[in-house]
């Protein structure tokens, strides 16, 4: 007895491929026709890739590296990363911990967005102990929290906690964008607690560069008080749209055309989905912080003048005397490198190194070039200037090399 089975119905994708293959002999007479047939083939591949796109979106995870939440202050978390491959403290060559301080307008997991594009992993691999402040979204009642509350409150308490838990007297402070400016402010007030300062696309001199943000927030056309009064905490949609409109054609057209071109490449798809998830994960910023930063920083440029008020203090960057590593992007449209470069003459340090790569603001954290060249070098730079963990050999400090200044 034989069992009859229904003939398999070819999928739409297979049928389309068969049709394309059938047309090839006719198109062979014309290179232009062949090129258009290839284009049709690619279109078919793209249509067939949509289930993979949906799967990539569904399976997206925010953090690539496991971590412990050490302490929380309301929604704000202090986290400590574990070695990704099951390694523990034995992997740590340096006793001086790194505390990463991110900007207040986005989530910090862009520094740990994918296993092969993780700044956190670069430092873990380099033998460092990595901690991070995850600011999270402020609560509605937090709109009166000032920059002073963040720098002298949260950052200071977290620094003390890291030092207590690691039994160290100093740590390395690492700040990205606005977080870099806040880290520099903190270091100027507590230099004794900071061994090295790493700044990543951090703005200091807003009189330089011709970024659109500076134009838009000009005092003549932008009333920061009115915005804060109306919103309280400045909403993420407002911030997100502002960033989006800095490059409207690239962000709203060219990006999606590029996506359509490359969506069949699984690695590209994974990276694209990760970045899109992060870019759209804006969080509100406390109204008072926004006002302080826009008024005293962007509009009046008081940081370089030594008159930026932070609670009862005026920030004097000359008080920073520790080694400083300034990492900048040459094509940064958000924080033009001209706004970051002056840090070498604004601080009191004698050991200041600047490194730049050809990328944009976010490319500093996620581009392949940055992970190939810049981050291993940054981990090494920091290693040369950090305390060696007990039981590890090597020079605890090394004199700055000429090659560090690029």
């Amino acid at each position, binding site marked *: 007895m034989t069992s009859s089975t229904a003939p398999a119905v070819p999928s739409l994708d297979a049928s389309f491929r068969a049709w394309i293959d059938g047309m090839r002999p006719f198109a062979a*007479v*014309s*290179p*232009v*026709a062949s*090129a*258009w047939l*290839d*284009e049709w083939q690619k279109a078919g591949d793209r249509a067939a890739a949509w289930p993979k796109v949906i799967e990539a979106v569904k399976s997206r*995870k*925010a*953090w*690539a*590296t*496991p*971590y*412990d*939440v*050490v*302490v*929380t202050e*309301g929604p704000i978390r202090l*986290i*400590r990363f*574990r*070695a*990704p*491959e*099951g*390694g*523990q*403290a034995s992997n740590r060559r340096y006793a001086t911990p790194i505390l990463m301080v991110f900007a207040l307008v986005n989530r910090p997991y862009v520094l740990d967005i994918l296993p092969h594009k993780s700044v956190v992993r670069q430092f873990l691999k380099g033998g460092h102990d990595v901690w991070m402040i995850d600011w999270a979204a402020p*609560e*509605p*009642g*937090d*709109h*009166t929290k000032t920059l002073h509350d963040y720098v002298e409150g949260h950052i200071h308490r977290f620094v003390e906690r890291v030092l207590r*838990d690691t039994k160290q007297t100093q740590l390395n402070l690492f700040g990205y964008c606005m977080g870099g400016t806040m880290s520099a402010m903190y270091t100027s007030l507590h230099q004794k607690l900071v061994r090295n300062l790493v700044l990543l696309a951090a703005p200091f001199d807003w009189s330089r560069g011709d970024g*659109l943000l500076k*134009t*838009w927030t*000009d005092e*003549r*056309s*932008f*009333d920061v008080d*009115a*915005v804060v*009064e*109306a919103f*309280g905490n400045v909403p993420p949609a407002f911030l997100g749209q502002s960033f989006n*409109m800095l*490059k*409207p*054609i*690239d962000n709203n*057209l*060219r990006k999606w*055309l590029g996506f359509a071109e490359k969506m069949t490449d699984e690695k590209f798809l994974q990276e694209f989905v990760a970045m899109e998830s992060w870019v759209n994960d804006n969080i509100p910023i406390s109204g008072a912080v926004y006002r302080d930063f826009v008024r005293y920083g962007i509009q009046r440029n008081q940081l370089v003048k030594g008159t930026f008020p932070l609670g009862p203090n005026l920030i004097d960057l000359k008080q920073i005397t520790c080694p400083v590593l300034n990492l900048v992007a040459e094509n940064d449209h958000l924080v033009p490198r001209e706004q970051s470069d002056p840090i070498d003459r604004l601080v009191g340090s004698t050991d200041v190194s600047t490194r730049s790569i050809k990328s944009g603001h976010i490319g500093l954290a996620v581009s392949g070039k940055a992970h190939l060249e810049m981050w291993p070098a940054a981990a090494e730079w920091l290693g040369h200037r950090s305390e060696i963990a007990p039981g590890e050999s090597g020079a605890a400090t090394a004199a700055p090399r000429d090659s560090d200044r690029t």
Partner: protein
Amino acid sequence: MSTPHAQPNPMDPMLSFWKEAWARMAVAAPAGGMPGTAGTAAPDGTASIPGFAPGVDPLGWMPTPDMLRRMQSAFLDTMASASEQYMRSPQFLDQMKQSFDAALEMRRQMEEMVRRGATGLVSGDPLTTPGQVSADLLAGLRGMESRLNARLDDLATRIASLESGAAREQPRPVSSASTSQSPSQAPSQDGAGTTTPKGGSRAPGGASPTKS
């Protein structure tokens, strides 16, 4: 005496945009020029009728996908530079200011309306405060409440774990060398964001939590 020609033409920005776009696209297209004008020159350089010359692509007059891509890119470049130029112009900044003012005024009026409505509900109540102040106070209290709740939950967990540890140790003889694990102080998370008790089970695919 007025000179009509001194008036700027309102169409100038539009015309200059299209002029620049076409110029850029022409450069991006191959040497033959724009699509449809590539011609069908035979290898010997003589002009020929499309499809009838030997060794000549009969569809050579059509643009290739690559050519269209390059032209698209040139057009987007023009749009990008034009939009950046516009977003820096005084006209845009004036419009932005007016939009802001209008949006903020609308929000202010809405709040005022809500406040009046709320005041009307409790009219005569001397304790009624302006809407914004009430909202701020409530938001502050809510934040404080949620923090206190989280702290109480944390303390309850710690007490429970202390009590369960003590209960386990009690029946044992004093001589036995039991090593009780210290209670956790903070939760730990794996990469997926799932919370597990610190010192507890190993995270799937990850390492056991470190002591901190």
